[in-house]
Structures are given as C-alpha cells and as structure tokens.
C-alpha cells in the first residue's frame, strides 16, 4: 500500500517536471489584463489616500501571476479594480480588450459573471447550500445562457477540482481545503478568462495550502490565467511571475521558475511516512 503510494507520487512528480520543462513564451499569447496609468484615490474626510499611483501591467493568457505586497501597498485596490468590483480614479483597464473602466454597473456585473472567477480568502460559500448548488450560483446570473445544463456544468467543475464525490455536501461538512476547492469550482463554472484569487490560502494550514496551489498549477497548465493576490512567499513561489506593489506602485515584476506543488506534496507525504514509521518505535 505504502509502496504503491510512493511510486505513484514519484511518477506524478516526474511527469509534472516534464511539463514544466516545456516552458512557453508568454509574450506570444494574447493579453487578458492590460492596465495603464492606473490610479485610485480614496477621499477619507479631509485626507486623500492614494492607493494606486500609476500602475502599468499586462497579464497574458496562460500566466500564473502572484501580486504581492504588504498591507497598504495597494494590492487589494488593484484586485478590486481588476476584479471589476471597483472603478479606477484614472487610467484604463482592458480585460479581453474590453475597456472595463468605462462600463456601467450592470455591464460590470456581467463582466464579473462572464470573465472573472473569484476565489476568496474566507471561501465565501453560501451556508446551508450544497457544494453543487454553490458552484451553480454564477450560472443563475448568466445572461448569455451559454450553458444550458447548470447542474451538469457544476458537477463537471467539481470533478475538475477533485470533488466529484462531494457534490451534495454542505460547506460545514467539508474541510477548509475542500471548501476552497468548491470555491475554485464555482470560479471555473462560467469558463472565465481570469481566475482572481485573493489570499486563497490565508485560512488554510501549510499542507492544504500546497494542495490548493497544486490545483492552481494544474488548472494553469490547462491554459487558465490565474492571478493570486497574496502577501505570502509560501504562495508566490508557485507562481510563474511575481509582481510586487509598494505604496501604490510596482517595484518589482519578474518571471521565475515556479516550485512544483506536486513535488512538495510528494515530499510532505514521504516525510509524514517516515515519521509514521518511526513513531511506533519511539512509542515502545
């Protein structure tokens, strides 16, 4: 049993690194997010807070980007604008070529529905609502009716995140990692151009964090563009590109060779196994 597990994991790790080896040149794919001269100023009483002070950034299809920064760096504002929840004070934001900063509230809601999949720190699933119903939720607001069978689409999406056997579970019957998977399935169900994850592992332990990151990496390999907004190196090391914000400006923007979450899981499992093998000895 243990031997079989280890073998499978090693094989998985090897195949993973093979795929990572075929590194695509991102500059060839079409841009998903293009922001230029993005500024956001909040007025709080008499003082003005400049959350973003001129940000230019392009994210292309198939990228896995971590937007990093400390609290107050402007990364939440950035996420809200990219996510179509907020308008910039100035500058332009093109999402799939659509000038989002010029859209009305209703069109913005449709953009969120069609083009963006949100994953939140606190999972934000509806309580007392089964996993599959949670995943179906965005389709309720889909005015294009591109997906006819909501239930099937939701089940497919749950299978994609490895929860095909948990469709009827309610959030309180699921672990944190599973809940976040449901949230990711919900983000995927409308087939968006962009997955936007805000501190997706902030409420998870380190093992589950790696598992969720593994899922993001798998999805990214299928060509899904993912933006992770985080302040944790634990998360950013799995991204292919890191954008660091500070005081409302980009201070670093570089690509990297990401760590493989699958490898890390394999290591974790091996480590755990060793501990378990030694544990009975120490108990004697």
């Amino acid at each position: 049993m243990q031997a079989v597990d280890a073998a499978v994991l090693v094989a998985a790790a090897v195949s993973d690194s093979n795929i990572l080896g075929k590194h695509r040149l991102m500059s060839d794919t079409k841009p998903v997010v293009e922001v230029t001269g993005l500024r956001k100023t909040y007025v709080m009483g008499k003082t003005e807070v400049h959350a973003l002070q001129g940000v230019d950034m392009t994210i292309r299809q198939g990228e896995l980007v971590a937007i990093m920064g400390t609290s107050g760096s402007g990364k939440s504002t950035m996420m809200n604008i990219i996510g179509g929840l907020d308008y910039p004070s100035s500058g332009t934001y093109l999402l799939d070529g659509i000038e989002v900063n010029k859209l009305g509230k209703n069109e913005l809601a449709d953009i969120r529905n069609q083009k963006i999949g949100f994953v939140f720190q606190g999972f934000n699933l509806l309580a007392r609502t089964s996993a599959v119903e949670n995943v179906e939720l965005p389709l309720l607001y889909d005015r294009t009716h591109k997906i006819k069978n909501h239930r099937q689409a939701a089940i497919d999406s749950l299978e994609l995140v490895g929860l095909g056997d948990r469709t009827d579970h309610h959030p309180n019957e699921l672990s944190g990692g599973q809940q976040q998977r449901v949230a990711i399935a919900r983000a995927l169900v409308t087939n968006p151009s962009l997955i936007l994850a805000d501190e997706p592992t902030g409420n998870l332990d380190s093992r589950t964090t790696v598992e969720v990151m593994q899922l993001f990496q798998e999805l990214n390999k299928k060509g899904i563009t993912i933006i992770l907004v985080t302040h944790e190196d634990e998360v950013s090391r799995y991204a292919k590109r890191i954008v660091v914000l500070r005081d409302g400006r980009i201070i670093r923007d570089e690509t990297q060779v990401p760590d493989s979450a699958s490898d890390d899981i394999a290591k974790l499992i091996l480590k755990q196994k060793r501990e378990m093998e030694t544990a009975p000895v120490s108990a004697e």
Partner: protein
Amino acid sequence: MRATRLIKVALKSIVKNKMRTLLTMLGIIIGVGAVIVMVAIGEGAQSQIAAQIQNLGTNMLVITPGSSNAGGVSQGSGSFNRLKDTDADKIMAESAYVAGVSPVIFTRTQIVGGTGNWRSTIHGVTIDYPVIRNWELTSGRFFDASEQRTGKKVLVLGATIAENLFPNDDPVGQRVLVRNVPVEVIGVLAKKGQTPEGNDQDDVALAPYLTVQRRLSNFTFIRQILANTYSSNDIEKAQVELKAIMREAHGLAAWEPDDFEIKNQDQLSEAAQGTTEVMTMLLAAIASISLLVGGIGIMNIMLVSVTERTREIGIRMAIGARGSDVLTQFLIESIVMSIFGGALGVAIGIGGARILASFTGWSTAVSPEIIFIALAFSAAVGIFFGFYPARKAASLNPIDALRFE
C-alpha cells in the same frame, strides 16, 4: 426561465430559515385571518338580514299611499290615502305578472279570550296573503274565499298572541272577543320572528278584510296593498305594470304625480343592507390595521435579514448578480412569504369563522371574493414593505458587503 430560477432561490432561502420565515409570516397570518373572520361576521349578518327580508314574503310588491303636496309642502308618504279595495280587484283582473293581491287594513285593538286579554293588531287581508307573505300555519286553517266574500267573523292568530292567550291549549275552535264581537279562531300562524327593525311579526292576527272593515272596526282605509309575482324575474316588469294600472284606477291625468308608491323587496331591504355593509367595512378596516402591522413586521424582518445576509449579497454580486437580481430575489422572498402567510391566514380565518359561528351562533359567511382580496392585499403588502429592504440590499457595494463580518 430566469424568473423561475430566482423564485427557486427565494423559496430555498425561505425554507432554509424556517423560524425566521414563520415569525415574518405571523403578522400577515394574523392580519389576513382577522380580516377574513371580521368580514365573515359582517357578511354573515348581511345574509341573515337578506334572509329576514326574504322572510317578509316571496316576490313581494308593496303599494302604499303616496304623499300629498299641499302648496309645495310635501306631507310625506301616507298623508293622502286614496288606496281602495277596488284597486286590488283591478290589479288582480288586469295584471299579467301578479299572482296574488291582498289589500291590508290594520286595526289595533284588545283581543279578549283564553287566559286573559292581549293588545295586538288585526290585519284585514285576502286569501292570497299567506302566499304573498310566505307564511305557513302550525294548526287549523286559513279562511277561504266564501268566508272572505261574506266577511265571516273568523281570525287566524299569530304565534305571539296564541302563546299569550292560549298558553296551554290549541286556540283553534276557541272564541275570542274583539271589540265585544265574538270571533272564532280558525288557525294559528307559524312563527316568523322579528323584522330587521326589531318588530315582532308574530304579534298579529289575520281576518278577511271585509270582516275587519265592517264588523271589527269602522276603519275603511286600505293601508297598503300587497302583491306577489309568479317569479322574481317579473318583479320589475310588474312594478311598471302596476304603476300604470294604479294610475288608471285613480284616474290620474298625465301631469298629475302618483298618489301611491310601489316598492319591491330589494328596495325594502336596501336600507337594512346598507347598515350592515357599513358594519362590515368597519370591521374590515379594523382588521386591515393588523394586516398593516403585519406588513411592517415583514419589512422589519427583511431589513434585519438584509443586514444578516450582507456577505451573501456580496458573494452574489461578486459572481455577477446585478443590483436588479438582488432586488428581485429579496422582493420575491417577501412576496412569497406574504402570500404564503396570506394563504395560511385565509385557512385560519375560515376555521376561525366556523369556530366562532359554532360557539356564538352568529352566522358567518366567507365569500370567494374576500379570499381573493385578502390574498391580493397580502401580496401587495409584500411588495410594498419588501421594496425598501430589497432596494437596500441591491444598493450595497460588493466590496463592503464582502468585507462585512
């Protein structure tokens, strides 16, 4: 399609919070229930009065003397009596619609006999009278045509007189004295109860009108002429016809006004009905206040619910719900709750009306109209009082809503 989905979402949310839903609906349930019970009482009273009016007679027309007009001052109805027994004969002979006619003359007098004496009213009528008034006999018989023609001294007693003069034995065959004239009691009338005005209809005795005119009083005025038609459809036609016959009988020229009045039962009952309608409306108005309070209850709970579910609203908006979607969802929730509450209220109201009827003996009537009105009204309450909270929910900023703890 979208609407049915949104209704489903609303229903789910309602079912998921059973306690909250029940508390919200309680106000509407009580409000609608109260309206139904109150209106049932009112309508019950109305139909009771309608039955009493029907009790006065069947398809009945009443001709009374008209008012005289002295130099422009109307003396009121009855001030100028030109009704004659020949009018009744003419109506009987000429009318196509009239089944029976009876002139009525009254005399108020002491009836002596049996265990003592009793002051009552003797009505001089014809053999058609019991048919017109729809009045049965409990014992004996009514007078016949030959007794009517000859003015025989016979009397049919009303139940009240019979009870007072002959409490222990059957008055039929007994003799009573009316103004010192011995009269034979040949029958006793069935109990008819009170008129809507509270007069005892049974405190009366009936005799052939010739008997009353010639032997029991020196009173020859005909106070009214009663007639009935073959069917209720004929009443209005008969009314027109009788008017023409009466005008001819009284030899009125075209420019002269009627010296009589003809009323049918509907006209008689209108006044009485009017009173109970006012009562019904009053009761319904009082009950409507509780419905209003129920509506405010819905608004209250919906407002709490919007605050409680701020995060849910944030999630829905983040994944693409428009403000109008959120508005619709909350509005549907409040409408569904108020309609459900209304339906429950109707059920409870009907049950309550039945229970009340069986305990108090009041007659109650629940009409389909009032059920419809109550349901429509509760839906309106749901829209009216659900709108403000729904608007509040729809105008939330998704960023703030998501951050709400």
